[in-house]
């Protein structure tokens, strides 16, 4: 069987993130590439969002399982640190899905002056869209999120930190 790289990528696009199941590993920018070597071995390159992210091991398992379902068994999953993942890697589609899910997406790029200077930012509430919100804690339910509350609709929400 000849394994086609595009076919592999198509399968992997269906693998979702264990922590935020509405997003795929492609939306998040965790999936970097897949290659097929001369012996037909598939090599999948993934990159961690946070260094201690406990979801990485789960993602490895899910990547293998997805390929196995399509009869592809000879797979190696490689974790590469370069280029470094930032929230800029989250696709526009991914950001839209995050907001729909109730998680406020990053409001800036890591190259923005406001981020570099560490300016206070306005994070709109993903529920009622009000900009009258405040941070409760810099660290939320997972390492990649901060915890906010909306002062208008009073709902608490997670904010995917620019990082």
């Amino acid at each position, binding site marked *: 069987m000849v394994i086609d790289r595009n076919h592999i990528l198509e399968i992997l696009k269906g693998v979702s993130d264990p922590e935020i199941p509405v997003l795929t590993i492609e939306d998040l920018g965790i999936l970097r590439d897949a290659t097929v070597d001369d012996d037909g071995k598939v090599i999948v390159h993934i990159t961690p969002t946070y260094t*201690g992210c406990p979801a990485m091991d789960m993602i490895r398992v899910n990547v293998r399982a997805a390929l196995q379902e399509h009869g592809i068994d000879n797979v190696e999953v490689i974790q590469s640190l*370069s280029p470094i993942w930032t929230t800029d890697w989250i696709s526009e589609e991914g950001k839209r899905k995050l907001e729909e899910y109730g998680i406020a997406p990053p409001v800036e790029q890591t190259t923005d002056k406001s981020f570099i200077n560490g300016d206070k930012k306005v994070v709109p509430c993903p529920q009622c869209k009000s900009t009258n919100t405040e941070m409760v804690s810099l660290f939320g339910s997972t390492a990649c999120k901060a915890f906010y509350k909306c002062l208008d609709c009073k709902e608490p929400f997670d904010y995917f930190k620019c990082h």
Partner: protein
Amino acid sequence: MKNNDLFKYTLQLADDVMILGHRLSEWTGHGPVLEQDIALSNIALDLIGEARNLYQYAAKQEGNGKTEDDYPYKRDVLQWTNALIVEQKNGDFAQTIVRQFLFDCYHYYHLEALSKSTDEQMAFIGAKSVKEARYHLQYSAEWMVRLGDGTEESHARMQQAIEDKMHYFEELFIPTAAESRLVESGVAVDLAPIRVKAYAKLNEVIKESTLKLPEDIYTQQGGRNGVHTEHFGYILAELQYMQKSYPNMQW
């Protein structure tokens, strides 16, 4: 053939974040309020993640079938080269915050410089972790101000914590012989400019916190040579319990 200096340097950096991450994990389930419990656990996760990257790199250098787990689980006290500050007890929340803030002042600027290392893997690890350390420093600096410039009680506890922990700050800026040799080739970070930046941040935040640095600070050191404080054995007793009870067990 492994470069002994680089190997030692890798382990020294790993040991610092491994032990501080372990200490912070002791707060999990015991934080003063839920948000802070989560925050300290998240910082612990970041630090242990950084330690894993470094231990994996050490294992790659050493070869012989070593894995990242061999270093934290199978070395005894004298083989650990972390600085003494990271092994100090959690104490009350003030003691934890001051220990964290002092380490963050060093760690953030150190990682920033490490991301420019001539050693490619070191540079990746630095660039990856500096993004997280930036949030750690922001977090601990905010608590320094909130508690230092807080109530009479919180101020007094913070001042006590500063006096207890400052003995361990300077050790972070004393290079080992191996480290100094690596600075020449641009692999290791030159600590002199890091020290200047760390003190600038420290002084700025101390002032805003209405706290005072003690005068005539006696510097405790020894961690880099494997000479640890009395708390360290207790950490290993817990951290390595499973491997000592059931050698080579797999989880």
